[in-house]
């Protein structure tokens, strides 16, 4: 019984993590039909930058903040430079371009992060370390024992902090002016333009916001798990499933789907092993796509 409860908490934590990534894909796709296949890479990048800063002797908070700023900045550059051509095209063409650009970005960043960049011959500051192994931001959080269940402290932090991030996100979208403008574009781009909202600027803002959330999710996740460069594409595929099962345009759907899939995957992991669990996850996405294809087109 205690084991089941512990697995449920771990599953919930994984679910919240997936929900944060799924929301990122959903927001960007809902706003501008760009399917961000690089979102998992942003998640991993945040972890790597944080470990890099932490290596310099900084604490976890400073490391996390530094990492989030770097990821947000890279997100801004990616949006302005790489996504603009996609937004200039229309319909199916735009979706295809978005897929290939973000896919290429994933492949590029993965290769780049594994190798690092050493330009110290030219300038001493330009040294980006290589990240060939697995990394975590373990803070040796204590385990909590509740009624016989030994629960990982890091899982509780992921759930609590993740819930706060999601709440802030909802508050931002429902209550603030920029958030309302965002939802206007979501619902009716032409109408939004008529009332003076610039969709392109909203898209930039939301893209940066989504990769920031993905980065935060990564840092939370790395408190209790190892993350490597190759985890990036895996996170992306999970987030994609969450987004598909959640309906691609619905935030509440993405959150529900994330938590559901996190639980299913973690329990399946326990009972039938990780390989079958992953097959179940992707299988669920296929079944869902076949059952409700209108969700994504």
């Amino acid at each position, binding site marked *: 019984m205690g084991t089941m409860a512990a697995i449920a908490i771990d599953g919930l934590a994984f679910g919240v993590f997936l929900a944060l990534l799924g929301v990122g894909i959903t927001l960007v796709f809902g706003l501008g039909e760009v399917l961000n296949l690089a979102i998992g890479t942003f998640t991993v990048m945040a972890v790597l930058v944080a470990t890099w800063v932490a290596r310099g002797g900084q604490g976890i908070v400073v490391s996390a903040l530094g990492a989030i700023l770097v990821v947000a900045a890279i997100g801004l550059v990616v949006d302005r430079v*790489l996504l603009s051509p996609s937004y200039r095209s229309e319909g199916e063409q735009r*979706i*295809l371009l978005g897929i290939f650009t973000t896919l*290429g970005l994933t*492949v590029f960043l993965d290769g*780049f992060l594994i190798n690092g960049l050493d330009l110290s011959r030219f300038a001493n500051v330009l040294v980006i370390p290589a990240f060939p192994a697995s990394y975590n931001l373990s803070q040796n959080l204590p385990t909590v024992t509740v009624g016989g269940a030994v629960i990982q402290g890091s899982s509780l932090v992921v759930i609590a902090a993740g819930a706060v991030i999601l709440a802030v996100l909802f508050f931002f979208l429902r209550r603030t002016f920029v958030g309302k403008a965002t939802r206007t574009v979501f619902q009716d781009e032409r109408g939004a333009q008529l009332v003076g909202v610039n969709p392109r600027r909203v898209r930039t803002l939301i893209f940066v916001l989504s990769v920031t959330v993905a980065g935060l999710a990564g840092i939370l996740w790395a408190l209790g798990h190892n993350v490597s460069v190759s985890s990036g*594409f895996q996170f992306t595929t999970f987030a994609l499933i969450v987004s598909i099962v959640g309906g691609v345009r619905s935030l509440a759907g993405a959150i529900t789907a994330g938590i559901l899939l996190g639980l299913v995957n973690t329990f399946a992991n326990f009972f039938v092993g990780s390989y079958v669990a992953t097959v179940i996850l*992707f299988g669920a996405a296929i079944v869902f796509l076949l059952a409700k294809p209108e969700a994504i087109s």
Partner: protein
Amino acid sequence: MSVATRVTTALPRETVRNVVLVAAVLALAPLPVLGSSYYEGVLAHLVIFAMFAVALNIVFGQTDQLFLFMGGLAGIGGYGTALLADWTGVNPWITLLVAALVAALLGLVVSWISARRKFTVVLISILTLNLQLVLVEIYGGARDITRGSTGFPYDYLSFPGVAEAVGVSEDVVLYYFALVLLVAVLLVYVWLVNSRYGVAFHAIREDDLAASSIGIDVVRYKVVAGTVAAFVFGLVGAVYVQEANYILPADFSFLTVDVLVLIVLIVGGLRTTLGPVVGAAIVVAMEEILVANFTQWRSAIFGLLLIFLFLYFRSGVVPALADLVDSVGALRGEPGDEPSG
């Protein structure tokens, strides 16, 4: 019109001549490097990826069905050939056909469902991407059957006696076998696009609603393209691992096969006959230069290439060259050649 005359009239002489020319170049290519198993491997790699790209050209280029489970389909061919031969003791050349037919069946089902339900290209790509992830997960996870990430030596498609009789290595024989396959696949492509299929494909690409309103059976044509392409992926998949003499789940991963085949096809030129071969030559040559100089930057450079190609160079090398030839011809006051690629 009889079938025979329809086929002969359907194949434009110039395109066939170009295919033969390319085949001749590729047939002579191993001679200067004979005995260097490394360069023979490089050439075989070129031919194999050219075939993958022709298959993608059929299904994506001609009918807009973006199959992103090319690696998975190739794996069905690779694993299927070996496992069926091991289980049943049947000759691997027969199990190769069976495995390729299984891959074709999967392609058929995916195409049929997608076409029947009018899935968009994006939906097909995401659906097949999920299939790809399931398949590779199974190749790695079903250890009892596939021996998981340890893999196993792959020596199924052998040519007993041929190598000794001619006095060359098995690898060279495999290369020429792959080359024959490539020519066959290219001719199938040429035949398809120049038959009534090609006309139907064109109409469907333009507007499938309009195509069906003038009596074109959209579902049937898409299914034919999907099935033929999936068959080729399965067939070539076995040749692909035979060339490596070893099979591993990672050989069929999305980033190993699908991304590379996409780059090959787009570099060479979507919907051109020889684009896949030209693209494969360019990509393989780039790989060789990269391996020699900055091995570890392979992935980063291919990522950048993918972005750049899709944003700025979607027409590909073959159409660009054809345009160049045209404009040179025009400068000389000659009638421009038909883009023949």
